[in-house]
């Protein structure tokens, strides 16, 4: 039982792959959620309506200022207390999704503010409303500006998705832990799980680079 013996991985490899599949689903859903929810949060946080702006600011501040793990516990263990029961997977997507929506909103806000005032003026002078201007002119440009920063958020999301193992989502980290409790081989399986995360991240990064290149704004 001493030393490193990678041969134990072979038997449990399907288990890890199963975990990888759940990690992929979990992350795909959370990423989509975090991006889609990030946009309205960003827009609301710079709204001309003082109430909407303050409430949004408060919401962002709460989620930025508290640990993701705590938020996951609140959703999975806390909500049932008030009658809301969510499956581990849904809790995970919601927790990761909201947490990173907040970070994405922060990034998107800087992008929206960075779009020149001339763009607002040109759009408004054609007769577009404030909302139409945001949707058609400002946000598409803002997202292009901040694509690299959003990319690093998404990579962080992928890595932090391992936290969700604690609320029993059967993802990669939990799969590794189960293999370990069968075999008492923590070193091998954590390394294996780490390697798989690395590979997935590598592909995510490649994908993000392509998106960045395609949407880069020449000025």
């Amino acid at each position, binding site marked *: 039982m001493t030393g490193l013996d990678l041969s134990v991985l072979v038997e449990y490899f399907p288990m890890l792959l199963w975990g990888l599949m759940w990690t992929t689903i979990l992350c795909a859903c959370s990423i989509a959620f975090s991006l889609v929810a990030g946009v309205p949060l960003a827009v609301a946080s710079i709204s001309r309506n003082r109430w909407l702006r303050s409430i949004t600011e408060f919401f962002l501040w709460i989620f930025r200022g508290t640990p993701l793990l705590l938020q996951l516990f609140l959703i999975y263990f806390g909500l049932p207390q008030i009658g809301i029961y969510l499956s581990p997977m849904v809790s995970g997507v919601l927790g990761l999704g909201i947490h990173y929506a907040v970070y994405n909103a922060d990034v998107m806000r800087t992008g929206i503010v960075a779009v020149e005032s001339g763009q607002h003026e040109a759009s408004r002078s*054609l007769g577009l409303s404030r909302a139409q201007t945001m949707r058609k002119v400002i946000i598409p440009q803002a997202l292009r500006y901040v694509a690299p920063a959003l990319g690093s958020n998404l990579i962080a999301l992928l890595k932090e998705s391992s936290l969700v193992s604690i609320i029993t989502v059967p993802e990669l980290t939990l799969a590794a832990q189960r293999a370990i409790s069968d075999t008492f081989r923590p070193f091998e399986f954590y390394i294996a799980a780490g390697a798989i995360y690395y590979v997935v991240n590598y592909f995510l990064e490649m994908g993000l680079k392509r998106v960045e290149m395609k949407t880069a704004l020449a000025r």
Partner: protein
Amino acid sequence: MVRVVNVFKRFGDNEVLKGINLEVLRGKILVIIGPSGSGKSTLLRAINHLETVDDGEIWIEKVQVNLALTGRKFEKHINKIRQNLGMVFQHFNLFPHMTVMENVTMAPMLLKKTPRKDAEEAARRLLEKVDLIEKVNFYPAQLSGGQKQRVAIARALAMEPKVMLFDEVTSALDPELIGEVNKVMKKLAEEHMTMLIVTHEMRFAAEVADEVIFMADGVIVEQGPPDKLLHDPAEERTQRFLAEVFK
């Protein structure tokens, strides 16, 4: 067509428009000249409410621009008016994430619900007019300043405005590119488009204007036909400005 009645505008302590009155009839071209800081751009921008005014009235045909409405109601009101006012800016302000075609077709498709096919056909005609038909699928970053400005004119024309506002549209251009933009504006003049033009180019003003206004320090100092105002101005302030410009 456009009527400005006793308009005042202040930025803090700085009074930039001090009781402006003017009128532009349908099909006429008004050119506004004056030193920088005279309020001429502010006046032009006030006409489509990119600047608010503190006092006075602005009318487009029978509709007052600066109505005392609030919130959503005003938003609706002003968006409708702006569809009739094409504006072209000094710095082009093309949408960099859209192709030339998309820049020109976006507003009609979104606001007038023009079907894509019709909007693109109209855009082709406009791009033909500004001599850029070969650039339809280019992005703004791939164009020269003069080309960008001609796209911006086509974009404004796509909404079929009743009045065109030009805010120093050649000031940011290299000298050799100014001609191509002026040529397009002359074409519009020949088609009897109603235009308000703020410019530093006296020769162009002389060629296209029906009427020229000289502004300084927030007031209209002098107003008249181009021959008179540009060559034989009555006011000393105008003479000084023109002497400076033609030096």
